[in-house]
């Protein structure tokens, strides 16, 4: 390396110096170096950067602290899932995966292809060390779901999984991002070969003291199908980013999410979908609800180049501002260069329906419960067509608990 570590980031903040120090302590290789340099070009993302206006990670914390450890609950997976547990320092459970799933750790994982577009994904790729980098190859449809649990500890925790799903194979994949570190980063890279199908269910929770970045990249070969359902409760800063490319003809994607942000919580759902082949379909439904002092961010982009004729894409984002002092920022974007496509988007932001609330109260349902029921029904629409009904009810019951908690 020619550049001294300390000069990688111009005018680094104390938090960025912590990240540089962490990088310096790792055994370097070309892929890691490339990822860290991509991150170093911007440093921690801040409000003057494209795509980060409402999600300033640099200003949020001068120094990355070590949050107090807390009790953790398990929501996803049920009893039959295989569990991969990233404890913050190491990974457990990769020896007990179902038939058809091979996992191996590598010192020199491939470079993260999306590093230039995703600074926190690049940071995660650079700082995930060997005990926290896993390659998974799925060669036949497993008989049970796989559940990856990401826990953080201390100032920073990073983990990275690269998943290759062979042709025609189906995978039920879950992630729980439970925070715990000053800054947690998780990077999951999916490649679905022809006709493969993945349902990815994500649950994210954190505290005001923490920052979390969950980055996913998805590549779909012909006729592959990727279905994603995210329920996010946010943290001091939370970025949940999905970058998907339709690479083969006739692939399909569903990118749904529900977010619930309480006082002091920030949650950012950002997605970028590139239709790189003709005849692909994308469906996206994001439903949010934000309380006083909370902030929700939705940024969605569909990029449809000329080659992508017969694209069928729809993006919907609907947010509820539950109280005065709640904030939602949204930027839906369609960039279309093909002429024979069906692309639509809708974006709404408002309060609960007053007529509906009165109707429910007239039937005897107390105001707070009526608000919870209407909000829950709103969020539930993002999870309507989950295949795994067990996970669906697990997620919705978490939403219900949050909505009925006092002062959440």
């Amino acid at each position: 390396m020619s550049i001294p570590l300390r000069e990688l980031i111009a005018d680094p903040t104390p938090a960025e110096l912590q990240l540089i120090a962490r990088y310096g302590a790792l055994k370097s290789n070309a892929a890691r170096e490339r990822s860290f340099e991509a991150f170093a070009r911007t440093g921690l993302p801040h409000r003057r950067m494209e795509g980060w206006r409402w999600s300033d990670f640099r200003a949020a914390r001068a120094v990355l602290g070590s949050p107090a450890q807390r009790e953790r609950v398990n929501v996803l997976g049920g009893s039959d899932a295989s569990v991969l547990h990233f404890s913050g320092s190491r990974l457990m459970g990769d020896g007990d995966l179902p038939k058809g799933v091979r996992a191996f750790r590598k010192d020199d994982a491939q470079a993260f292809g999306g590093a230039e577009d995703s600074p926190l994904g690049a940071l995660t790729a650079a700082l995930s060390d060997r005990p926290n980098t896993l390659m998974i190859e799925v060669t036949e449809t497993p008989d049970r779901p796989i559940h990856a649990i990401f826990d953080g500890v201390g100032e920073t925790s990073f983990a990275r999984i690269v998943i290759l799903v062979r042709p025609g194979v189906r995978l039920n994949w879950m992630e729980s991002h439970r925070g715990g570190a000053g800054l947690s980063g998780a990077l999951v890279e999916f490649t679905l070969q022809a006709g493969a199908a993945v349902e990815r269910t994500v649950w994210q929770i954190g505290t005001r003291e923490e920052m979390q970045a969950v980055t996913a990249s998805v590549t779909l070969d012909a006729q592959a199908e990727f279905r994603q359902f995210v329920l996010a409760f946010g943290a001091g800063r939370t970025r949940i980013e999905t970058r998907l490319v339709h690479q083969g003809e006739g692939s399909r994607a569903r990118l749904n999410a529900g977010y619930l942000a309480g006082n002091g919580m920030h949650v950012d759902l950002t997605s970028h979908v590139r239709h790189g082949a003709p005849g692909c379909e994308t469906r996206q439904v994001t439903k949010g609800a934000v309380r006083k002092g909370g902030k929700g961010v939705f940024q969605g982009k569909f990029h449809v180049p000329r080659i992508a004729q017969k694209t069928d894409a729809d993006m919907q984002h609907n947010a509820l501002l539950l109280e005065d002092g709640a904030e939602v920022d949204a930027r839906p974007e369609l960039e279309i260069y093909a002429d024979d496509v069906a692309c639509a988007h809708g974006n709404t932001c408002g309060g609960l329906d007053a007529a509906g609330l009165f109707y429910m109260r007239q039937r005897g349902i107390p105001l707070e419960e009526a608000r919870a029921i209407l909000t829950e029904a709103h969020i539930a629409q993002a999870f309507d067509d989950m295949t795994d009904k067990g996970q669906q009810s697990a997620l919705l019951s978490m939403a219900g608990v949050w909505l009925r908690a006092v002062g959440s």
Partner: protein
Amino acid sequence: MLKLDDLQATVGGEDNVTPILKGLSLEVPAGEVHAIMGPNGAGKSTLAYVLTGRDGYTVTSGTATLNGADLLAMEPEERAAAGLFLSFQYPVEIPGVPVMTFVRTAMNSQRKARGEAEISAPDFLRKAREVAAQLKIDTDMLKRPLNVGFSGGEKKRLEIFQMMMLEPKFLVLDETDSGLDIDALRIVADGVNAVRASDRGMLVITHYQRLLDHIRPDRVHVLAGGRIIASGGPELAERLEQEGYDGVLGEAA
């Protein structure tokens, strides 16, 4: 049972307050069905909303009590738990909440407010099936989100379904006949007649006499300009039908 004394109410916020009820007095004893008839703009729906406590309606003077309890001091849900039920002129769509879930939540909320035990799931199901059969409601409809995509007639039928499930002490029917064809009207009226009881009162708000052929009132009141300007037996409704509001109003003036 229901007693309104010199009730005055306005609609609207600070800048555009409009007086609607201007000294309305009315008493409906237990066991009786009273009809409120009146021309458009007389204050019929306002009366329904004032009784049930909707936001945007302000009572400026007078009293309203149900079995001696001060309705005006209660939140809408407390009024419901006290036994007041409004069949809405325009029932509201509640996306994502199936009819059965909604009604059970409402019933148990009311029971809880009254200090009663929740209804068991089997008891609730049995009762729902009985009432649905009586109202010729397909049980599949009860699994759908409340009022979403329902026809006007279906919505009205569901209002009566909820009423029969919740067994209120006093019910207010606001233009329940609007949007109903003649068969649906008969079914709805049969439902209402089935719950007539010596300890239950009803206020039937309607523009036309048609509904009163099916739900025979004990008394008929004519509401105009925010006050009751004439009261009488069922024959008053027939006179209104024949002479029109202008005829009866002209005489009262």
